[in-house]
């Protein structure tokens, strides 16, 4: 017997590719607003591309809007809220994506 698939209406969830591949994780949260990465920051209504993440060279990740709000204050001294090292936004390269097989 041969099974020919004609059409497959599948369902999937999207996740930010944070390098965390744990299948059953409850999901990491943004350290600033405590909302999951796949949720949206307090100033946004739509998750995903409208409320993206920002990666630091220090490997810490936040909702971009949350981090920018923090960096916008003088109190931040332009430091990462997690490790208080100067914030440097990481250059994300497609090649870094672990799942990429191309």
């Amino acid at each position: 017997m041969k099974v020919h698939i004609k059409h497959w209406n599948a369902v999937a969830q999207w996740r930010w590719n944070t390098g965390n591949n744990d299948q059953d994780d409850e999901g990491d949260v943004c350290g600033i607003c405590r909302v999951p990465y796949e949720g949206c920051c307090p100033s946004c209504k739509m998750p995903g591309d409208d409320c993206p993440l920002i990666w630091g060279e220090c490997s810490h990740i936040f909702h971009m809007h949350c981090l920018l709000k923090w960096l916008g204050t003088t109190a931040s001294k332009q430091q990462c809220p997690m490790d208080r090292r100067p914030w440097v936004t990481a250059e994300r390269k497609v090649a870094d994506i672990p799942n990429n097989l191309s």
Partner: protein
Amino acid sequence: MASSAVRAQVAAKWQESFARLNRTEPGIAGLMGFSEAWSLATTFLKPYDLNNPTPKPQYDMRQVGMAFDTINKCRRLPVMMEVFLEDLRKSQHLIAREVEVHMNLYESDSDPETVRRLIFRLVEWYNAWKPTAELGQTIISAYTLAFQTHLFSILPASFARGVKTLVAATLERTISQPSDQHDRALWQAFDALSLIERYETLIASVGYEYIEAHVLEECIGKWAEPMLASLRSWMIDKIVPWMLWPFARGASNADEAKTMMQGVGSRFDFHMHKTLCDLRTREIFDIIVDFPDSIGALQDLKECLQRVDQRAELVQSIRRSNKKRLLHPGADTKDILLSYVSTIKCLRIVDPPGVLLFKVADPIRRYLRDRPDTIRCIVASLVGDGESGDSLIDDNEPIQPLQQPEMENYADPDWTPEPIDAGPDFRANKTSDIISTIVSIYDSKDLFIKELQVLLAQRLLAIKDGNLDRERRNIEILKIRFGEPALQVCEVMLRDMTDSRRIDQHVQSQKASIVHPTIISRHFWPALETSGIVMPGQFKALQEQYAQDFSVFKPDKVLRWLPHLGRVHLELELEDRTVEADVPPLEAAFIELFSEKNTWTVDELISRVGSVSRSAALKALATWVDRRVLKEDSENLFRLLSVAEEPTPGAKNPAPKPAVGEDELPPVMSVQQQQAEQMKVYWKFIEGMLTNLGSLGLDRIQAMLKFAPGYDRTIEQLGGFMEAAKREGLVTVKDGMWKLGK
């Protein structure tokens, strides 16, 4: 001395009497004349036996008149009256005998004509014995009183029955032939014997009963049109003419009659309203069910209630029939809701301030609150998911934001005090629309939003043609009702749908795939039942390829498949046939495995797709058995029918049939299931309690759980959970005490 004084006194008395009787006549001529007059007068007055064959002798009325005159002059009239009444008393047995004869006859034949004859005969007796008018009203009144007192003392109870029958007959006749004067004599006879005063209540009851019968005949089950107006004119045209006989006798003109009838007329009018009010009160449950085809009855009821104070009875009636016919486990939640909505609409007509509604609604609302599927029903109706045509939503009602109960505004010039039968917790609900009223069954609207999310998720995942217009329109309407922030989650769900299509179009344009996923945002969709199934063979390859293509398009995102959701359209190419099928993923996964080899045991299949329950696996296999693609050769061993086989005649279907009507909606966890899931967290607490304390009642468990962090379940929810735990054998219950199962 003394004796001469006595003698003198006696002599004076005698002289005085003599002078009175003899008057100024010479000798004793006056005395003689008085004696004759006395004799004539008393003989003339003496009650005469009508049954005596010899006729009553004729008297020269001039002589009789003179005799009375003489007696009067001698101031002997009072004594004559006493003698007359004594004679009357002695003759009363004549009447008593006749009454007895007639009434014995009536009691045996029940012919009201016998009573009519008796009445006429009694009038004859009465007239025959009645003193002449010239003796003055005092004597006639004394006579009448004595005659009637005696008469009433001998009339048996059955006489009243006879009178009632006769009166009823006069009513019938007046109604059918208004100009007929046949009964005039009877009414005059009643009047002559003072029977109308004596039987006034009885006569009125004839009228009442007639009105009752008429109202029932005209109005039972007829609710479309208001009946009061026609009943009122019926009263004026038919009942009032008859009422003139007993209640306006002696009236010389219409105005006089009107004045005399005022009191009794308003009692009759009241009775008509009360009869209709009672009837509608008894019928109210079905009137509500029939709404809006019963508007007439409701308008009547409103008017009746203003005349007859029966509001409490109406409330009782609705509550009683609701309890008996509506608020029981056999009734559909949807029907209860529809009936509640009808009740709201009906009672708004009957009692605009809403006091009655408030009292009636309370038990319905409490009952609905305890039903697990009430919210689901309401939400389904809100999004126009009514399987039947009936919708809770009134299309005439504008879509408006939910109303919050308002504080009373006493500064409002239109403010009116609450009706007197409003209870202390009555809240005027004038402005609320139906949906607000229903939603307010619950303290919070969050539950509705959650249920809405579940429903929307099911419907979105079931969409095949990609047309979201209906759901989008629903959400827009719900935004007006519930407010935009509450619906934000639903907005995200809708956007996921459109984004999925855009992404798919892009991915397909780069590299065509037969996979077309709906990509959803976690945290914004209701908990989707987790399932660990792994799609085998080419399915897995397709998933991986698509996920890769997706990540090329969206480099910072990855896909996590929810393999148990969705549908697969596939074609099986067998040796002698091809089979096309549109199936859930598990069915597809199993049949894919049969392309590897022809026979599989259920356990082998389950282990290849990861974790799936045995019953789900058997159900999936049954789909293929039904389509004659697989056959269960022996228990739990399935074989691919590469070449079609006819089913063995008489062989029992080995695979369990899927449950009839099991819905094909995506397995989104209902709010109930989600709650049960969360409840499991508390199982440890309960287990600990029962381990330490042996057995506990539900309220005790509830009280102790209150100490567990974040515990916010109601005792009903706890009860449901414990029942579920019992089914799983974790606990047992006896006399309301819960214990850990062995």
